[in-house]
């Protein structure tokens, strides 16, 4: 192990180089390396995790991007939005008699033209964007960076002049940003294509102009270059935390294609992301993030039944008050919030529980709907709200679409990370004519609801991408555009009023929702027989029950016992589900 001759944080490349030299010195043949790791990664892993220094690595945000110097270690959290493909680069070359490596770097240190001994290696490119719909509470508090960046500032002050030119863009975006909710809507209105082709700068800049209510420091999009990891590990729409070297080389900014072949080969994806707007991150270590990783204090508490039960009761009470004392609805709401696709069988998504609250009028929506939306935003890390209007349906691009001119996958509203929550407000829908886009969008929404799949448009063919989103529909009558799993007529008895909730309680509820959702679940053989018997009886009694209805009942049973933090279905919970279903049926009549 090499001693502290380099600082991992400020000079990660030093570590790369020195390990490379060690490897070469110990007789590793660069040609046999083929881009594989030579010992640098374990070093970083050790540094970050075993010495738990990961919190010292600055997180890339518009605020921090001003302080972060190029070629230092940074963290970035984002969703993989597009995969531009692989890139071949000069991995190792001989400079004189010395082998040097170019891994984790963009530009060659010295011209290679005379060198016969160059090795071409391969790396993957990922275009990552800030996680869409991220609630403000997930952001790491500003002070935390403050302390960190101060140190950085002090020794980088002299270099600030030079750095400014490469990072003067992000400065402008460190402003007020509107809530993800309204931003989402806006993005939809001028079909998010625009926001992408014009790059992050205008996107963020334009969002500052609209009315901002909450301060959200959003991180910029980022091109992450991945080394040493199998392709299957990363999927589209996954959320990752990347730790790597931030590069932004001013030389690359004058990225003019050379004349002779530019006419055809200019479809280089990266051309559309000028490095001064989209930073490059050479990734050492990445780790997949789930919902629970967005909690503030990531305490790994054992979900004890008592604790969970207490939290459940409190949360349910809170939901009930929000929903105007509607007990049935709040029960369903809780189950809905815990649902998650846990298996797929022949295109069927098992475990989803989309909810349709009917009985909303324009007036009630403004009272209850708004409250509910706010509460959900506080509880869940990834939330969206789609106001369904004819105009919206006719104009928005819901599905991501491949643009072959720019060779980019242009994102759509429904490009969602796993575990997102989507509120569809159908009360605003009025009679009108849908154009072809609108019809298509309706179909997409329906598919999302029924199959948890979104069809990505690759122009010459469509590709179904699996998603896992919780859908909540608020409508006046039963929604026909969005056939939800459960339809619950909403019957408030009192007005909704929001209780003051302490941040600690809120935090506990978030923890509850995120953790309980992940629990594994099973069923005892006896219980299985009971459930089967009940299902058969139910179907014998009512022929209109479809297999989907039965499946939903079992899902509810599962979620019910999960909500108590239990890992196997008990008779009591099954009875509760049946009772709940009975009450719901009663309301439907």
């Amino acid at each position, binding site marked *: 192990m090499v001693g502290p001759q380099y600082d991992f944080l400020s000079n990660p490349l030093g570590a790369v180089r020195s390990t490379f030299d060690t490897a070469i010195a110990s007789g590793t043949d660069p040609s046999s390396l083929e881009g594989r790791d030579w010992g640098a990664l374990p070093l970083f892993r050790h540094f970050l995790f075993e010495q738990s220094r990961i919190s010292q690595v600055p997180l890339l945000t518009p605020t921090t991007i001003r302080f972060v110097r190029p070629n230092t270690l940074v963290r970035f959290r984002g969703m993989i939005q597009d995969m531009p493909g692989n890139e071949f680069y000069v991995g190792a070359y001989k400079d004189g008699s010395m082998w040097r490596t170019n891994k984790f770097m963009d530009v060659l240190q010295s011209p290679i*033209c005379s060198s016969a001994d160059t090795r071409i290696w391969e790396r993957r490119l990922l275009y990552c964007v800030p996680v869409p719909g991220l609630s403000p509470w997930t952001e790491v508090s500003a002070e935390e960076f403050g302390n960190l960046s101060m140190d950085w500032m002090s020794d980088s002050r002299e270099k600030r002049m030079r750095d400014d030119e490469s990072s003067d863009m992000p400065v402008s975006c460190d402003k007020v940003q509107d809530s993800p909710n309204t931003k989402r809507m806006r993005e939809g209105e001028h079909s998010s294509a625009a926001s992408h082709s014009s790059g992050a700068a205008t996107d963020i800049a334009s969002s500052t102009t609209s009315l901002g209510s909450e301060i959200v420091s959003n991180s910029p999009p980022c091109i992450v270059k991945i080394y040493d990891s199998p392709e299957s590990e990363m999927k589209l729409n996954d959320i990752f935390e990347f730790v790597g070297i931030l590069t932004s080389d001013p030389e690359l900014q004058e990225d003019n294609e050379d004349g002779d072949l530019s006419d055809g080969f200019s479809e280089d994806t990266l051309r559309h992301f000028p490095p001064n707007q989209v930073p490059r991150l050479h990734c050492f270590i990445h780790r997949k993030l789930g919902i629970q990783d967005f909690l503030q204090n990531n305490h790994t508490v054992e979900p004890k039944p008592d604790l969970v039960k207490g939290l459940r009761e409190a949360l349910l009470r809170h939901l009930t008050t929000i929903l105007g004392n509607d007990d049935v609805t709040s029960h369903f709401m809780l189950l809905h919030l815990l649902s998650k696709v846990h298996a797929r069988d022949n295109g069927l998504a098992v475990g989803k529980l989309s909810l349709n609250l009917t009985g909303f009028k324009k007036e009630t929506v403004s009272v209850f709907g708004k409250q509910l939306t706010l509460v959900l935003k506080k509880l869940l890390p990834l939330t969206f709200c789609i106001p369904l209007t004819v105009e919206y349906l006719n104009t928005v691009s819901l599905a991501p679409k491949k643009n072959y001119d720019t060779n980019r996958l242009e994102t759509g509203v429904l490009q969602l990370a796993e575990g997102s929550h989507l509120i569809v407000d159908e009360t605003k829908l009025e009679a009108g004519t849908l154009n072809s886009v609108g019809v298509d969008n309706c179909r997409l929404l329906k598919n999302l609801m029924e199959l948890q799949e979104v069809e990505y448009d690759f122009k010459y063919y469509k590709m179904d991408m699996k998603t896992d989103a919780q859908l909540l529909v608020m409508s006046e009558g039963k929604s026909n555009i969005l056939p939800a799993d459960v339809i619950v007529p909403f019957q408030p008895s009192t007005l909704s009023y929001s209780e003051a909730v302490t941040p600690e309680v809120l935090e506990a509820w978030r923890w509850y929702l995120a953790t309980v959702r992940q629990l594994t679940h099973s069923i005892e053989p006896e219980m299985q027989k009971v*459930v089967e018997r009940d299902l058969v009886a139910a179907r014998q009694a009512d022929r209109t029950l479809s*297999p989907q209805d039965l499946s939903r009942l079992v899902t509810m049973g599962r979620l019910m016992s999960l909500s108590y933090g239990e890992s196997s279905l008990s008779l009591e919970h099954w009875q509760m589900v049946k009772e709940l279903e009975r009450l719901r049926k009663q309301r439907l009549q």
Partner: protein
Amino acid sequence: MASDSSPNFNHGPSSPDDSLSSPIGNTFSSPGSRRRRRSSTPSASATPSERRSRFASSEATPTAPRSRQSVGGRVPATPTSTTDDVPASSDGGDGYDMDDARPTFVWGTSISVEDVNDAIHRFLRDFREASSSQADDNGLHLHTEGKYEKLIRQVIEVEGDSLDVNARDVFDHDPDLYTKMVRYPLEVLAIFDLVLMNMVSRLKPMSEKHIQTRIFNLKSSTSMRNLNPSDIERMVSLKGMIIRCSSIIPEIREAIFRCLVCGFCCDPIPVERGRITEPTICLREECQSRNSMTLVHNRCRFTDKQIVRLQETPDEIPEGGTPHTVSLLLHDKLVDIGKPGDRVEVTGIYRAMTVRVGPTQRTVKSLFKTYIDCLHIKKTHKSRMQVEDAMDIDSGPGRNEDGVFFEEEKVARLKEISKRPDIYEILTKSLAPNIWELDDVKKGLLCQLFGGNALKLASGASFRGDINILLVGDPGTSKSQLLQYIHKLSPRGIYTSGRGSSAVGLTAYVAKDPETGETVLESGALVLSDRGICCIDEFDKMSDNARSMLHEVMEQQTVSIAKAGIIASLNARTSVLACANPSGSRYNPRLSVIDNIHLPPTLLSRFDLIYLILDKADEQTDRRLAKHIVALHFENPENMEHDVLDISTLTDYVSYARKHIHPQLSDEAAEELTRGYVEIRRRGNFPGSSKKVITATPRQIESLIRLSEALARIRFSEWVEKDDVAEAFRLLEVAMQQSATDHSTGTIDMDLITTGVSASERIRRESLLQATRNLIMEKMQIGGPSMRLIELLEELKKQDTGVSEVHLNDLRNAIANLATEGFVTMHGDSVKRS
């Protein structure tokens, strides 16, 4: 031939040819260098010496990319070292000053140029198709011509400019050559071209045509995703879909300069390293003025170049990934071979090119742009189930391989599956696995997918092989889902909804082209789904006019158009899969199918199978369903037994069977068929009953043949066995018993399908009519008071007329009949004798 090219060969490098001074200058590794090489001397073959010089330069080229490095950084060019093994010997490094005795090696390898040259020569001269090669092996100049000699002759005759060489032939003839070719394509192909030119000039001495070798059909094809740095500079073959084509770029090959002072034109200057060195001094000795040369555009030689982007086909994309793309560089004849959306199979050389930071800067980014220098492009078919009609593959003068679409191992796998004894069950289970039960319906649909044999007699009569199916059922019985599924699976499936389909939309219509004023035929859904399955949802909601168009399609399988100056008959060899709801939204078992679905009997009889999908309460089924659902939720899906084929395998299976299996009736099966048919016909004769009920029509026997053929196909069997026929009968009965059961007698009654009324029903109506007439005669006077229908019904029931169970509706019909006779008049519910 070999004897006269070899000396030439050895001679070349040793001769103090002028061209030897330029090999270094000739080094380039930018795209298209191979072509540049080819075209570098247009009159190369005119004289032996020039031919030699062409050779010399092209021999230099293989060594070029590497020799440049040894020469030192004269040019800021690409590091082309690739991943070749580092040369063990240095003697290849300067191939130019070798003397005659030493063999010439491709730089950095142990490949001897002479050896390769000879090997290629032998291949082109001696290769014969497998069957005849043994016999002719020893004789060089036997009467039979080698395959490629013949092809070369053809190419010369048609003045073509390329020779397609099947890489598999190369492999069969000389595996070593094949390996070298794939490993060092630039070098080997250069020699290939050279040998070819030698042969061409021998066959046609004065030919000035340049013929290029186009290799295709490599033994293994790579997936775009798996291209990695080790593939650089190797020959690869991959499949993909064209997504973008650039415009055609004229690329300069040779430039001609003229002196502005004296008007002297220099000799054509070839492109080197993508650049043309402009002469600074007028080459004419008398002039020699400086900086006077100017480019004469219209005397320069240009070639076509096009850049195409190829994307992975959807089936190669792993879950959660986006498709990869790769650029293709096309030259000359390959330009514009495909358009966006085409699926192609490309053979070419994978190359990498450095990215310069700026046009003026010498520093390069550490990145490479990769692209494929195309040698050959072949259009392939879609991933859907393939169909039997002629394929428009672009295989040039080469032979038209039939089996290429199914790789051998795939076929082997499919055959393996087909051998399983329970294949029929497996396929049934694999079809729409998320739809519960309905196994018999799925079996019928399976038969439809596989289809029977279409037969065309010499007399011109043709029998369709397509099986038409109608699904009638209660709402919510997953009919539409089945339809969607079949649509996804079938070749050229078209999915329409009855409500939205008009007659012309289904068949074809004539339109006037707004620009030219010509009348054009626009195909509708049925024509478009020729050799596919046309799925029509909501068949019952279709307008009668539209439905009537289907008559012709479903039996004659053509669409005839006669209007607006166009009389045409278009093929519409399509299977129709329709589904309909019963007329009252739920199926009324008391009514016949006809009454339930309101379809004209003429059309109905054209369906081979009519399935009634009724939701029957069956506890057994429910229990299985419950078990399945609970298991789905609580068991790990990986642990669950999945004995089903995935959709792509199923598609392959179906398309292979449709394409390659053409079963015939065995004698035994034919006998069984006759026996069975006679049996059903006879079943109509009730013992002791005089009324004759037609139970089956000749149409049914055709259906049966088709079904049994399809069943044989499912087993990949060339013979229709007795069991197939038995199963076909079973399917027909299952379908028919449901759909053609006469509810009053319980027997199969084809009259019900063909006229809408069963024989016994007819008799019953007749007697009711008679009874009503008698009743009215008895009870009412002409011009007397009117009676209500209810009263009449009561009266009828009181009387013992032999008519059991009279319904108001039946009575109403009877009265209506009498009214048409003028016997009574009816106003609402009251009847009056007139």
